[in-house]
């Protein structure tokens, strides 16, 4: 295919002739130029050089065959579509795909760095095994190359042996950023066929489960939200780092350009503990005391209720339209209020909100009362308005309640499922796999004995009854032998030996576990590994990428190799399938029938035959050609208190409350619950863990956060814009741009308020020791007036003791080493930002 592109359509291969403009300086031209240049001294500038430059242009430039591969970025979970430019087998450029809804022709700063990751000189070049039996930070693993067969046979034999002994639960598969059906999607069947509850343990409890849990508790959806930014007029952002870390980052910024210049301009208020770029770009930044976001949200709700600013169509109103929510804080008779799509509003007021005045919140949050009132009035009087939260507010012991209080504002403003509001993501129309794992379960896999073993992380046990996953507990539990010791652990796209709180536990635990790492990069977990089965990097990989929550309508990208694998690596999905094929019995049969990931993808793509995408993708070949299947619009919309379903031409079908409950507000009441039934199910547990009276656990409420660590300063460790989840750690280009706000281009500086620093006799740019009850690290402190005096901010970058020549031993130390491993008892989310530390000159 050598067609010249006529647009964004149909570019698969672009043959581009690099043409030259050969312009010879002609005598007439010279005369004219000389005349034109006239007498002015300045205008003669450059004449000579121009002539030299022109004459020296190549007379005939070589033709290059440049191929543009449509693929999907892999530097955050955003899944932006990328155009990968490859010439003569070398990738030299990546730009965002114009015809991809997420990237819209753009990419975030990380996206352009893909070629550096592909050509990382410290990558693993093929499967290897460890020959040094000793493990630890200072132990060279002494890896030696082995064949793929040896590697896969070794792993399979080990797993088979465990299974034969009836100990298959002692194999755990831990994974991070899974992508789709062709990688992470293969894990669950693997676990069920093999018979281990620990296949697979996700990392979301070390990421952002808090917001998901809060949404589940209030509107019944255990999911991140999708947002209609382009139509919103107010954004109230808690934490998240909307312009640094929130996903999909590129799309957020594309939206930002629009919403800051549209009419009316979207007003933005940012709540964070330091002034980041998001706060600086916003109309207002509120620097809040860490862990108190919920108090602020409750006070905003208080103002919205007492001033009658809630959305009457969605929420409902007093029967006589007279507002009985008074600033004096009197209880209200629930019978006087008629609720529409919410449940328990008046009880919430009576039990919580009536006490949560701006004056009260000002004490808790340190934000001036008048600012709180101003924000509440803006938020309450602007429609549509979105209250967005992620990470920060939820990374404390009170995280779920903070998040519920914030999400409650979305209900009060009627933005749930509304135009310019927020909703949830639809999945793609995938086809069925060639074989169904249910048909291949043998007696062992189906046995009651297999169900007897809890997960090693104890998620879902009485210790963590509400958490979906607890990866941060795995090392601790293994060390304690509770519930049991692991025998073998495999890691995919996760490096808890570096990323987890109290990383020391992992270094210790992995010493007596047989560790299999699939990363192509020499990370800390790989240094503890017994066998390395390296994945391709993303520019070499075929993989589906159903979208991260975005604008609700379904989308599935296809990551495709731009070049043949540079080294002897294998896609993780195929590694799993190959291990599976080596297992005895029906399990092996299943994987032989599954064949490989490409076969999986071909079957997934069959679903598009029945449901072609908006861009004409109707099968595997067209999927490959476009790199993405998507189908607008989102199917549901709430408008002035009524829910409608898309009928093919418009939001015309009025939905019944039953339909709303089934599809959208999936709570027991079918409404947004200010009194959460799902939390009340666990009333005794929550009451025990958080000290809340059992009858109150359902309300979004203020809970005083618990700050371990024994220090006098809050340590908050956000991600910066260039944070590519470990994949950027070994890129010198990334290091050189890492922290522009404070000028960190070799290290990242600890942000410290000058007042705080001077009290501790810490000079600007001085090396400091950051200490908590679990560890000590060093960093360079830099004065920053944009950080609260009671808080220090250390971006979670650098401090690797492996990961490649540029990453290794780069100060500051890793924040995980001083972060206490405590979690929100409800969501299970690791409380990354709740540790307190002391800081002193080093």
């Amino acid at each position: 295919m050598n067609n010249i592109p006529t647009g964004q359509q149909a570019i698969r291969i672009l043959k581009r002739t690099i043409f030259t403009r050969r312009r010879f300086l002609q005598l007439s031209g010279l005369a004219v130029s000389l005349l034109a240049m006239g007498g002015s001294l300045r205008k003669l500038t450059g004449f000579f050089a121009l002539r030299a430059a022109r004459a020296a242009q190549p007379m005939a430039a070589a033709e290059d065959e440049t191929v543009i591969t449509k693929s999907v970025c892999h530097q955050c979970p955003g899944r932006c579509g990328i155009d990968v430019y490859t010439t003569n087998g070398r990738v030299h450029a990546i730009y965002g795909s114009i015809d991809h809804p997420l990237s819209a022709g753009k990419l975030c700063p990380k996206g352009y760095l893909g070629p550096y990751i592909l050509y990382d000189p410290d990558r693993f070049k093929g499967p290897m095994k460890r020959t040094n039996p000793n493990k630890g930070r200072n132990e060279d693993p002494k890896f030696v190359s082995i064949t793929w067969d040896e590697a896969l046979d070794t792993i399979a034999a080990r797993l088979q042996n465990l299974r034969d002994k009836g100990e298959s639960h002692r194999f755990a598969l831990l994974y991070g950023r899974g992508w789709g059906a062709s990688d992470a999607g293969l894990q669950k069947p693997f676990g069920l066929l093999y018979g281990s509850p620990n296949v697979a343990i996700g990392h979301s409890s070390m990421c952002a489960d808090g917001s998901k849990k809060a949404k589940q508790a209030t509107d019944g959806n255990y999911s991140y939200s999708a947002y209609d930014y382009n139509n919103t007029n107010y954004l109230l952002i808690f934490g998240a780092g909307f312009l640094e870390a929130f996903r999909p980052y590129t799309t957020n910024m594309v939206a930002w350009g629009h919403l800051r210049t549209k009419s009316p301009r979207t007003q933005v208020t940012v709540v964070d503990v330091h002034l980041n770029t998001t706060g600086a770009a916003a109309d207002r930044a509120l620097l809040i005391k860490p862990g108190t976001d919920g108090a602020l949200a409750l006070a905003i709700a208080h103002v919205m209720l007492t001033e009658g600013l809630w959305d009457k169509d969605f929420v409902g109103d007093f029967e006589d339209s007279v507002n009985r929510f008074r600033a004096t804080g009197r209880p209200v008779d629930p019978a006087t209020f008629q609720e529409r799509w919410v449940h328990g509003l008046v009880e919430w007021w009576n039990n919580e909100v009536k006490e949560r005045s701006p004056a009260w919140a000002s004490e808790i949050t340190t934000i001036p009362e008048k600012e709180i009132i101003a924000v509440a009035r803006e938020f309450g009087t602007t429609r549509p308005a979105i209250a967005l939260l992620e990470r920060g507010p939820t990374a404390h012991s009170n995280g779920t309640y903070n998040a519920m209080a914030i999400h409650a504002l979305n209900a009060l403003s009627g933005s749930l499922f509304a135009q310019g509001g927020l909703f949830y993501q639809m999945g793609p129309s995938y086809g069925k796999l060639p074989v169904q794992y249910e048909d291949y379960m043998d007696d062992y896999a189906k046995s009651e004995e297999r169900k007897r073993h809890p997960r090693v992380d104890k998620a879902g046990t009485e210790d963590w009854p509400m958490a979906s996953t607890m990866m941060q507990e795995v090392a601790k539990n293994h060390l304690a032998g509770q519930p049991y010791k692991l025998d073998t652990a495999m890691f995919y796209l996760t490096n808890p030996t570096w990323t987890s709180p109290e990383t020391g536990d992992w270094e210790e635990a992995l010493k007596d576990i047989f560790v299999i790492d699939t990363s192509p990069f020499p990370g800390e977990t790989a240094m503890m590994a017994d066998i390395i089965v390296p994945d391709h990097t993303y520019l070499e990989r075929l993989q589906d990428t159903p979208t991260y929550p975005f604008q609700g309508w379904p989308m599935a990208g296809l990551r495709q190799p731009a070049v043949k694998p540079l080294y002897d690596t294998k896609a993780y999905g195929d590694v799993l399938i190959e291990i599976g094929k080596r297992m005895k019995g029906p399990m092996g049969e299943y994987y032989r029938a599954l064949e490989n990931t490409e076969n999986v993808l071909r079957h997934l793509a069959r679903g598009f035959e029945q449901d072609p995408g908006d861009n004409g993708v109707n099968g595997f070949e067209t999927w490959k050609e476009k790199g993405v299947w998507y189908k607008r619009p989102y199917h549901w919309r709430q408008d002035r208190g009524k829910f409608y379903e898309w009928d093919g031409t418009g939001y015309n079908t009025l939905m019944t409350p039953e339909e709303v409950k089934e599809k959208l507000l999936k709570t027991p009441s079918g409404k947004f619950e200010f009194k959460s039934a799902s939390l009340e199910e666990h009333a005794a547990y929550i009451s025990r863990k958080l000290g809340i009276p059992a009858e109150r656990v359902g309300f979004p409420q203020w809970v005083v956060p618990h700050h371990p660590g024994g220090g006098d300063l809050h340590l908050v460790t956000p991600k910066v814009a260039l944070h590519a989840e470990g994949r950027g750690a070994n890129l010198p280009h990334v290091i050189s741009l890492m922290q522009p706000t404070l000028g960190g281009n070799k290290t990242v500086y600890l942000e410290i308020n000058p007042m705080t620093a001077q009290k501790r006799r810490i000079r600007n740019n001085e090396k400091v020791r950051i200490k908590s009850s679990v560890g000590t690290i060093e960093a360079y402190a830099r004065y920053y007036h944009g950080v609260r005096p009671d808080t220090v901010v250390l971006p979670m970058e650098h401090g690797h003791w492996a990961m490649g020549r540029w990453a290794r031993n780069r100060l500051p130390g890793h924040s995980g080493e001083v972060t206490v491993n405590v979690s929100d008892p409800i969501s299970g989310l690791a409380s990354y930002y709740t540790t307190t530390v002391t800081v002193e000159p080093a």
Partner: protein
Amino acid sequence: MTTPSQSTLPMHGLPLNVNGVMKISAAVLALSLILTFYGLLTQGHGAFNTHSYGITWGLPAAAYVYLVLTSTGLTFVASLAMLFRFNEFYPVVKRCIWLAIATLVAGFATLALEIGHPFRMLWALPSGLQYLSPMFWMGVFYTVYLLFLLWKFARIHAGDWTSLQSYAVGLASFVSVVVAHATLGMVFGMMAMRPVWYDGMLPIYFLVTAGLSGIAFAILFTYLAYGFNREKMPEALRGLLSGSAFSGVFAAMIGITLLMVILRTITGLWSNLDGLQVYSHIVRSPLFHAELWLGLVLPFVLMLSPTLRRKPSIQITSSVLVIVSMFIGRYEFMISGQMMPLFKGSWIQGVIEYTPSLTEWMLTLVGISLVFVLYTVGERLLKLAEHPDAK
């Protein structure tokens, strides 16, 4: 008090210490060259601590300016007799011209190792003819100046001190050096974006300070030629040094320089112009105070005293102090123009920090030791003590 014969000294019986100095300086030159080339060959200009985000022109550039301006000053001293007929200065003329050549060559050598492609300059300068660039003219005029200097030296070495041709060549070298150093001044003085340098009168500042370092060099090297023993000097020379003319001119030049340094500093401290903040930084540096108090005020006071200023030890001390002070001044001038980042913020906070690297020091030492080597070679081979009266 014995009076050695005027004719014996230049012809033979060089004092041991010129030989000694030659040996030492040749050794230093060899060592510094080796270390410089080691740095350059292993790391390129990465062996320098200059940086695109920091100080672009560092210590070697300051050394270049220092050396070529010293050359200028030495020509001025020579011209006192050659052109302006202050005949008492004749005994130092030849030495000064040779020293002017030595410092100029040493300056060029330093510059050549400081830039990226010195040999490319040989064809790119004439083929580019960028008449708007002061650096282009600096190249042109310093080349012309060097040629005239060599010519003049050849004339007087041949004994032609006073012919019209010799006079004309001397005049030409004087004019060319005035123009050359003026363009060097303009290299900095025209940079409106560098307020510390931006000054239409900067060439005048350079002129005066060049004159001062020329005089200091002339004094020091004259003493050096005679083993720091004035008694060994020929009569005329001894008369010059013990009289009031030399030390008077020296004192006057120190005084004018002192005034200019102080006035520049006050202006810099007083003015709100963005970029001049660097002066408040400079006055806090010990180097500045060494330059001002030890290097200028002290010699000025010494040279004002009618009794002290005739003493050889005082003259030698003063010249050394001034020579060091002028070097600090050139360095400070060079760095201070670049110390304030062009924009505040990332990636540099506050004032740019710069400490010359070993290679930069070694390159500077190449320049300085080359002056000594060339000088001592000249002293041995070229009869630098000659003057018309000796004929």
